[in-house]
């Protein structure tokens, strides 16, 4: 057995605090009452089982008691085992008996510290402190604790307090780089009713849905003139779709000022979205076929998920920006230069073969299913050429259409790893170009099934702190995927990337 190599000390980083078992704080006993309220159904079942025990055979009674106490036990677990400690570097949280959870959250990664007071808290003067780091699941809930302890937690853990206490900024820190870019006030978009036709035209999916609604509505009107009750929901759907498109034109405005981006939209209900540029994780540029015909593109920015699901959204900056406008705006949003479209690389050509083989495989499966489905009516009504024709058409046409879409998609797929950004373009009819600054990378994932591995290709996903921006490349050569991953993982800094 070889001796473990000693850990190499890195003087540029603080040494972790030694765990001498001191400094742990427990929760308030009223936590039990809080858990009783939160687990009321299981508590009720547990009490019912315990109180109604007896009068039957001993084994049954024992099982009833065990299940009853088992249902009650979780209400005391959090109070008996929950403890927390605020160290110079970490917030630590421990809880659980059967399933022990030990969480260490670095203080400098804390994004927000919220306080919640429920009915038990109001009665006993207690609070629950929720500490969030970036990402939807990065959360520690400490409570119930007395008000003074909650105040202390808030003051010690708030991002501002941590920032003040932080050591000298690390050179190349991503948050430092983008904290306050000096951007003059810039108007990005100011649209009105005259832009509505163009906005409607480029929203292909809504346009198709609305057209289908019109066809269905007219059909109902013609075929069942007396039954207007079916016609009204179609009208309502079309109105809702139309209103959705209209909010992207009438009264839509966006602007940059200082280090923030602001978007205002809505006709009846006005919504103003504002986000610091330091939270922008990436940008997406979409071009539908009509948009390409009229020379426009839709530009959106993606912000970090820093306080739960609601704070994460893709914000449309301009639905009908002039084509090529992204080259000027995206560097402002991201704080980095964008890659030259001429440097974009195609995915592996062998990908096209893989896609058509996959479609052939699908055709075989569909053929088998179609054969079975067609066989049943043939048994009942005899050989019906219409049924056979439909089965053959589905078996041939669906994979064929799917293959053609895949071919179109293949022709549009591009990727590039620039000095400061990584970009992926995809889409068959509407193309999407996703640009992610390299410093925003949170992780890289490479996947390949058996067939892809035989062909030496793989899929790659570049993860960021925004749910809406994930750079995805399909069927890159494995060597290219590895090069992208290595480049991205080597290029991050110590700023957290959020």
């Amino acid at each position, binding site marked *: 057995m070889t001796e473990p*190599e000693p850990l190499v000390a890195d003087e540029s980083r603080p040494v972790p605090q030694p765990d001498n078992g001191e400094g742990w704080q427990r929760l308030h006993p009223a936590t039990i009452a809080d858990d009783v309220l939160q687990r009321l159904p299981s508590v009720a079942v547990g009490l019912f089982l315990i109180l109604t025990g007896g009068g039957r055979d001993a084994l049954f009674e024992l099982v009833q008691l065990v299940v009853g106490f088992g249902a009650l036990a979780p209400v005391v677990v959090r109070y008996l085992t929950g403890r927390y400690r605020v160290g110079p570097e970490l917030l630590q949280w421990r809880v659980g008996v059967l399933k022990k959870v030990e969480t260490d959250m670095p203080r400098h990664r804390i994004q927000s510290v919220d306080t919640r007071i429920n009915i038990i808290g109001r009665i006993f003067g207690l609070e629950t402190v929720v500490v969030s780091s970036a*990402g939807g699941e*990065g959360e520690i809930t400490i409570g119930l604790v007395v008000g003074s302890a909650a105040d202390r937690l808030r003051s010690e853990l708030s991002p501002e307090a941590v920032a003040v206490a932080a050591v000298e900024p690390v050179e190349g820190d991503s948050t430092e780089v983008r904290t306050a870019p000096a951007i003059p006030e810039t108007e990005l978009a100011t649209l009105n009713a005259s832009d509505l036709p163009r906005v409607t035209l480029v929203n292909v999916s809504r346009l198709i849905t609305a057209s289908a609604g019109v066809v269905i509505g007219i059909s109902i009107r013609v075929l069942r003139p007396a039954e207007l009750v079916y016609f009204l929901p179609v009208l309502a759907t079309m109105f809702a779709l139309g209103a959705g498109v209209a909010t992207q034109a009438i009264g839509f405005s966006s602007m940059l000022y200082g280090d923030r981006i602001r978007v205002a939209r809505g006709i009846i209900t006005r919504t103003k979205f504002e986000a610091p540029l330091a939270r922008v994780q990436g940008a997406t540029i979409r071009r539908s076929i009509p948009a390409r015909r009229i020379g426009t593109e839709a530009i959106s920015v993606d912000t970090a998920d820093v306080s739960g699901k609601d704070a994460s959204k893709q914000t449309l900056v301009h639905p009908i920006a002039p084509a090529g406008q992204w080259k000027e705006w995206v560097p402002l949003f991201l704080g980095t230069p964008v890659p030259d479209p001429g440097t974009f690389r195609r995915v592996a050509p062998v990908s096209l073969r893989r896609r058509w083989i996959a479609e052939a495989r699908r055709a075989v499966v569909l053929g088998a299913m179609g054969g079975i489905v067609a066989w049943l009516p043939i048994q009942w009504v005899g050989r019906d050429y219409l049924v056979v024709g439909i089965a053959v058409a589905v078996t041939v046409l669906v994979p064929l259409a799917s293959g053609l879409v895949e071919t179109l998609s293949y022709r549009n797929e591009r990727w590039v790893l620039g000095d400061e950004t990584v970009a992926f373009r995809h889409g068959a009819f509407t193309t999407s170009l996703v640009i992610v600054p390299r410093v925003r990378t949170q992780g890289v*994932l490479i996947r390949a099934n058996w067939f892809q591995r035989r062909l030496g290709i793989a899929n790659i996903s570049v993860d960021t702190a925004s749910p809406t921006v994930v750079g995805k490349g399909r069927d890159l050569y494995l060597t290219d995927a590895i090069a992208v991953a290595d480049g991205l993982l080597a290029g991050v800094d110590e700023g957290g990337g959020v």
Partner: protein
Amino acid sequence: MWDAPGFETLPTKALLVSRVRGAFMLLIIIAVLAAADLVIRQFVEPAFPPLVLPGLIALAAFAVGWMWTHLVWRALGWRLDDRTFETRSGVYWKTWKGIPRDRVQFVEVVSGPLQRHYGLATLVVRTAGVYTPAVSVKDLVADVAERLRAELSPESPGGVLGNHATEPGL
């Protein structure tokens, strides 16, 4: 990528625990199949004796599960260097995940009763990423999981952990 050198494999205890979990699942399947067999026999009389078909299915599931758990266990691995934490997994779909150590938000070590009995634990490394918010390595030796937690916690000093996962005594 998946066959790259330097990946630590999981201890053989992890394979054992995985098979014990599979055995629990198999017991449930056998119970359901046996119950279904007995219920069906109330209405029709199949040609084969009672519980033969559930037994054969269970035997086949046992054989497939035995081999599959081995393949899954063999595919699992992790690697830590001074910049990144990497995991690999998958049999048909091979997956490699890489996380820059500077992106680690916090680290959890979770262990259930079965894992604790065998001295194992699950390491969960959380980032701010939304697509892959957590990278976990199941059934690590508990001591290794603890050392990885200490090592991966953002304030820990950098350094390579070394080949400890498969060594006895850890």
